[in-house]
């Protein structure tokens, strides 16, 4: 049991922690999400949590954030004056203690109320926004946060948050996390905050976090992006199978040693050059996009410049709401899982087979043996971490849910795979696996249309369309696909130059 115990962290050992886990662990029924462990965060620390999908990162921060109670051990919030601290046994008191300790969270699964405006969402997070003129106070706080973190990205304060793009919603949540309030933010938890942000905005966030920590604030940062981890963290905790296996200052790791510590083999992305396939466009007329059989086509550009819309247009034109042809022409891999992908009441198995029902029908009913075999096959191929495919899909960690969506699409025979930033929240090791699968499928003649916010992924493509203001600005192919070219073409200036 004691093997997960944290060593004294490198930074500021003398100061009182903002939060301390004393042998705290968490189990969901028979599933052990987090083994009992000790962990603490002190003022001014910027801790990164890394680990494979399902390692327990979200569970750990959910304990810190009082979303649920530990199954054993204690979560303590020692007061700012270094008092003995409070531990709330009941839900409301736990949350209250967490809140008065100045702990805020930006969740992996976005937690805004889509029908409310940005200010109204802030009102829910900050209890002191009541009485006369609360809207004005809320507006001041939000504007302050936006100016500090994402200068130049003012977002409409009157529109319901649901009308914003995924990236904008993520920015709103981040801004809310750092916004001024009755209890100032002392520790902000960022659970994969950059997963839907493009590079430039992610860079703004990284800069802000560094400034925040330098001024004495603390951050727990979860990401599968190694570059960001090294850019932000001064301390890195590595998690594996519900335990913290290493917890050391960031400078003690190199990129390779960190990946190795997470239990992955470091793979060189895009090591081997591919021969781009030749042939006619198979998407048909009526699209700005074109793709050849066996080609991997990338959609790039700043987030929210029309890529997602172009993707769903493309997909919906290839798939009908009416027809039930023998085999669908295209399948879709959703990035916004909860909105576009998951069937929340279903088991993992049923979620995997959902796009292939036609192929599973024998004599009018679904062949459940074949279905189970299909799911098992893909569990093995793509590494879905679960002991029981009959378990509800929501019992999986975020990254593993994403793998299910991948399996769902690849399990069909559709010649075109449309992917909407599908690696959101997928861990490094799995990414490498999925890249392999994509390449192999492409070699076998499948076409991939792939929108991504990661430049690394775009570089895997044979051809790239860079979007700007809802339209294709530039088309890049072969060796011309470089980080510099994509970034440069993403901005208006480059286009006119």
């Amino acid at each position, binding site marked *: 049991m004691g093997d997960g115990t944290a060593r004294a962290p490198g930074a500021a050992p003398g100061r009182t922690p903002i939060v301390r886990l004393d042998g705290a662990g968490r189990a969901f029924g028979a599933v052990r999400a987090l083994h009992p462990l000790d962990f603490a965060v002190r003022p001014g620390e910027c801790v990164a949590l890394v680990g494979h999908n399902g390692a327990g990162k979200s569970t750990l921060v959910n304990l810190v954030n009082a979303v649920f109670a530990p199954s054993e051990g204690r979560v303590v919030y020692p007061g700012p004056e270094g008092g003995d601290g409070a531990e709330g046994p009941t839900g409301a008191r736990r949350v209250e203690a967490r809140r008065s300790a100045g702990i805020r969270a930006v969740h992996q699964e976005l937690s805004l*109320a*889509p029908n409310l405006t940005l200010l109204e969402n802030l009102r*829910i997070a900050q209890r002191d926004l*009541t009485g006369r003129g609360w809207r004005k106070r809320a507006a001041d706080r939000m504007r302050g946060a936006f100016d500090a973190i994402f200068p130049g990205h003012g977002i409409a304060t*009157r529109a319901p948050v649901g009308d914003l793009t995924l990236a904008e919603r993520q920015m709103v949540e981040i801004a809310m996390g750092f916004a001024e309030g009755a209890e100032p933010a002392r520790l902000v938890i960022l659970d994969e905050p950059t997963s839907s942000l493009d590079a430039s905005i992610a860079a703004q966030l990284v800069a802000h976090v560094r400034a925040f920590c330098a001024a004495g604030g603390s951050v727990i940062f979860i990401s599968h992006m190694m570059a960001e981890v090294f850019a932000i963290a001064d301390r890195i905790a590595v998690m594996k199978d519900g335990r913290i296996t290493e917890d050391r200052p960031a400078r003690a790791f190199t990129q390779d040693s960190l990946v190795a510590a997470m239990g992955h083999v470091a793979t060189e992305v895009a090591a081997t050059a591919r021969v781009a396939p030749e042939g006619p466009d198979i998407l048909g007329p009526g699209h700005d996009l074109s793709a050849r059989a066996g080609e991997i086509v990338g959609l790039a550009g700043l987030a929210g410049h029309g890529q997602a819309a172009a993707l769903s247009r493309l997909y919906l034109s290839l798939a009908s709401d009416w027809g039930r042809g023998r085999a669908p022409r295209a399948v879709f891999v959703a990035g916004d899982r909860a909105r576009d992908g998951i069937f929340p009441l279903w088991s993992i198995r049923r979620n995997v087979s959902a796009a292939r029902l036609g192929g599973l029908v024998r004599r009018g009913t679904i062949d459940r043996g074949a279905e189970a075999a299909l799911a098992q096959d893909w569990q093995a191929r793509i590494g879905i971490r679960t002991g029981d495919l009959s378990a509800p899909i929501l019992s999986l960690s975020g990254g593993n849910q994403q793998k299910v969506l991948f399996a769902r699409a690849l399990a069909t025979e559709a010649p075109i795979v449309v992917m909407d930033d599908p690696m959101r929240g997928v861990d490094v090791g799995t990414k490498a696996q999925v890249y392999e699968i994509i390449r192999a499928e492409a070699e076998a003649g499948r076409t991939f249309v792939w929108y991504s916010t990661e430049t690394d992924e775009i570089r895997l493509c044979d051809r790239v369309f860079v979007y700007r203001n809802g339209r294709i600005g530039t088309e890049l192919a072969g060796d011309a696909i470089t980080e510099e070219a994509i970034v440069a073409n993403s901005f208006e200036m480059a286009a006119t130059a």
Partner: protein
Amino acid sequence: MTPRLDIRILLPVLSLAILLAAVFWLQPRAMSYLGLNLLFNLAVPVALATVAQMIVIMVGDIDLSMGAFVSFVACVTATLVVDAPGLGYAALAAAILAYAALGALIEARRLPAIVVTLGMSFAWGGLAVLLLPSPGGSAPGWLRAVMTVKPPLVPMAVLASAAIALAAHLVVMRSSFGVLLRGLGGNARSLGRAGWSPVALRAAAYGLAGLFAVLSGMALVGLSTAADANIALRYTLLSIAGVILGGGEFTGGRVSPVGAVIGALTLTLAGSFLSFLRLSPDWQIGAQGVILIAVLAARLLFGRRAR
């Protein structure tokens, strides 16, 4: 205001205006102080019930007991409130508390509200029959006076509708408390994470709905001067239709109080419009359906996308 918010409220306003124009054209006599009052005074209780239904829909539920509850309140108002005012008002307060308790029960046990309210519609109906096995009772004097007051210039019905819309708008859309209630419909989990008690909030929402429904029943008695156990059964569907006509949606806490009141007025007016058309009795019922469809289909003109 963003364009989207504008459309949400613009559409109900336009439907009402067009219908009103059609009514005036068919029946110029309606274009007077007396005429407007006759057209709209029965819309006042409907508007109150619609606001109550809107609050329930706003937190993600549907209330199938609205009509039965308003009937029950009408029975209490026409009997107990007249005969034993102390007991009567206590009963009305208890009814509001019962609504709040239902809300708490629904949240705490995660019950489907539609079934609970379906069951409660029988219960309220039973209580109403027990109170008034046969129609009767009378309106409290002050209530009758309030509902038949003749203010200068603008008829009571129009003033009352405006007041209801304004009050509901302030409570639901502007106050910081209303934000919490709408948040409950939008994302109950994030409220829980922020330390709010969903049970208390749902109880509050239902209590507020109960308050408006009680006002509806009282207003109805003030107009009709008496009650019976079936007097307002139609309010259930009427209030749901009113919320939707007013731009509300069944899920996600997207509603508009002003729209809901306008929706209630539109529905009432649609009935008058049909009367003035003088259709054959065979088709009078069907025409109500057609006009409901026509008004809702107008939303297409505004190019609302499917979800």
